[in-house]
């Protein structure tokens, strides 16, 4: 294979559509890793990497498939960082990635169903399956002495999957869920949902949604009508923006998101802020890690062909080896060059388990005086 042109990596995210407000930062995260490598010049004898963005639209599988098709057959990308939403991710995987034998690392598709998808060993994700988060969330709530909650979730595979696994875990732990009500994202009004939730009652409201979508609308309406005071926020709900917007109303609310107490996340925060990316945005760190893993695996295999490097990804992500944090990519490449083992930790303390997804260490947070504070790890 010639190393004449730059190595291309596709970034497929929903730049338009219901997640359009979080995807720029996700793409930014991935490009951060790519730029870092390019600046180091240590990748495959100084080859440069070029990011090619494509729009998954989050919801339109056909458009997403076409976009992926173009990335692979026209742009000739060596790997894909994406997609974001579980639905389109599945479509791209089945119709394009497998067919062409290209690796996909999704930073955010968290549907449990993807664990079972047939992938010919080509699909990975740096986010944990929602099955796991549900269990953690249940513990987090229980440990605060709350055993009765109302639950609302965004009506998609992510929300539903998370809500189901949470409810199961919570009830097994002895708690009770007074109501489990779906909400649709991007709608104009959530009074009806809040009315039902309030009527059912509970010591806290668990909101398995997106921070700038229906989830926010629900919290806003609950706060406005005084329906709930305490909110439990899983990964999709945590971001500085919502805390700023709602002000003191969120104080005392808590939640968890994939993350670890690795210095990685702190370093990433700094790097991202410097690059003008909001590091608290959901899945920004995961995106950085996804891109980094792709690059490192290629470097290790010394090839941009999926057949060669797909097998290296698990190896790179897990111990043994020297721990690699954000900003250490140059070092990592040198180590690889030198034939040494590395253990990529990255921004989110990546630890991949079979079948190629993040094991899921979770960070417990609480909102205090308008700031998101980490109170522990699980």
């Amino acid at each position, binding site marked *: 294979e010639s190393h004449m042109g730059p190595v291309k990596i596709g970034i497929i995210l929903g730049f338009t559509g219901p997640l359009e407000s979080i995807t720029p930062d996700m793409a930014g995260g991935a490009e951060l890793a790519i730029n870092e490598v390019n600046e180091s010049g240590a990748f495959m004898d100084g080859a440069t990497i070029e990011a090619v963005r494509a729009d998954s639209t989050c919801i339109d599988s056909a458009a997403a498939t076409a976009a992926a098709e173009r990335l692979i057959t026209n742009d000739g990308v060596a790997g894909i960082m994406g997609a974001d939403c579980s639905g389109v991710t599945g479509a791209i995987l089945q119709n394009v990635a497998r067919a062409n034998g290209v690796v996909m690392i999704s930073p955010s598709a968290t549907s449990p169903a993807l664990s079972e998808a047939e992938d010919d060993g080509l699909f990975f994700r740096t986010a944990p399956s929602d099955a796991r988060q549900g269990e953690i969330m249940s513990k987090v709530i229980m440990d605060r002495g709350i055993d009765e909650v109302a639950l609302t979730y965004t009506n998609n595979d992510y929300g539903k999957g998370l809500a189901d696994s949470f409810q199961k875990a919570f009830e097994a732990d002895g708690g009770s869920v007074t109501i489990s009500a779906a909400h649709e994202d991007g709608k*104009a009004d959530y009074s009806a949902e809040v009315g039902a939730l309030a009527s059912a009652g509970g010591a806290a409201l668990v909101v398995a949604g997106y921070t700038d979508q229906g989830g926010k609308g629900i919290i806003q309406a609950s706060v406005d*009508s005084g329906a709930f005071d305490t909110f439990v926020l899983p990964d999709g709900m945590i971001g500085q923006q919502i805390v700023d917007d709602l002000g003191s109303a969120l104080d005392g609310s808590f939640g968890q998101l994939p993350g670890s107490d690795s210095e990685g996340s702190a370093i990433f925060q700094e790097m991202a802020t410097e690059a003008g990316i909001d590091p608290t945005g959901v899945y920004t760190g995961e995106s950085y890690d996804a891109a980094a893993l792709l690059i490192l695996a290629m470097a290790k295999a010394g090839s941009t062909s999926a057949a060669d490097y797909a097998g290296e990804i698990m190896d790179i992500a897990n111990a043994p080896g020297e721990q690699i944090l954000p900003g250490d990519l140059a070092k990592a490449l040198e180590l690889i060059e030198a034939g040494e083992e590395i253990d990529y930790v990255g921004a989110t303390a990546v630890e991949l388990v079979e079948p190629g997804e993040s094991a899921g260490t979770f960070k417990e947070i609480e909102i205090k005086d308008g700031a998101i504070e980490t109170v522990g790890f699980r």
Partner: protein
Amino acid sequence: MTDLLNAIVALSNFVLVPGAAYGAQLALGALGVTLIYGILRFSNFAHGDTMAFGTMATILVTWGLQSIGISFGFLPTALIALPIGIAITGLLLLGTDRVIYRFYRKQKAAPVVLVIVSIGVMFVMNGLVRFIIGVGDINFADGARFVINAREFKEMTGLDEGLAIRSTTLITLVTAAIAVALLFWFLNRTRTGKSMRAFSDNEDLALLSGINPERVVAVTWLIVAALATTAGVLYGLDKSFKAFTYFQLLLPIFAAAIVGGLGNPLGAIAGGFVIAFSEVLVTYAWKKVLEYLLPENLEPSSLVQLLSTDYKFAVSFAILIIVLLFKPTGLFKGQSV
């Protein structure tokens, strides 16, 4: 007695007040849609994005005002900026008409072609708004958010249930009432208003009567700009501004305009409330209210919910369809092409 009061307050707080607030927001949007349909005779898909554009313009002006230290006391600053926002939107709409719609009007294109054209306009405006202000959530409300909030209400009355009334709710309700009254008066009593109706009724004959079509169209777009911007700003103050949500508002707004009777301002208002209340009421869980009302041993163990909130939209649309089956051109006898 307190139980009864608590029940009433709970119902008001979670059904009546939110329903009225949402209803008024939809109604204001539907007024614009219905006016375009009534005069220019097509369903304007770009209306949601027009609202977004108007709101965006107003937000930019608001930021400008805030940065030079102007505010409006307990009222949101955006209300001062609103007239300027309306003016900017008016210019945009007039420009759009000149560049795009006029051609099809001259061609006497079928209404459905105009609908498709307006989808094109929607895409373009959509991009425009996002280019200028981005895709994120923007909170531009300042001033007092509540006339009374739940906690204060509880403290004041000593009841268990709180009642919250947001200032934007009141402003929206009042605005909607004034807007419909003005529009009604304008269309039915003033010369210009009548000439607009004449234009929509029989364009050729309007011409023969000396009515200037370009003027009619311009006036229509200007009113639409005012309605859309006001609707958008009030909605944004209440919730927040996000381009995508404004696009999503389009469907309930259309539903409101149609169920009320297209082309009829009163219908738009009625339709707005029908849609809003059918969303809120049918999926309401009556448990809490019943707990207050019924003696202890009869209290319900379940939620007493007719349908789960999953079916909120399905139900509101089902109600809409039922209304149409009995009133085929809407509650207030709308037009149909």
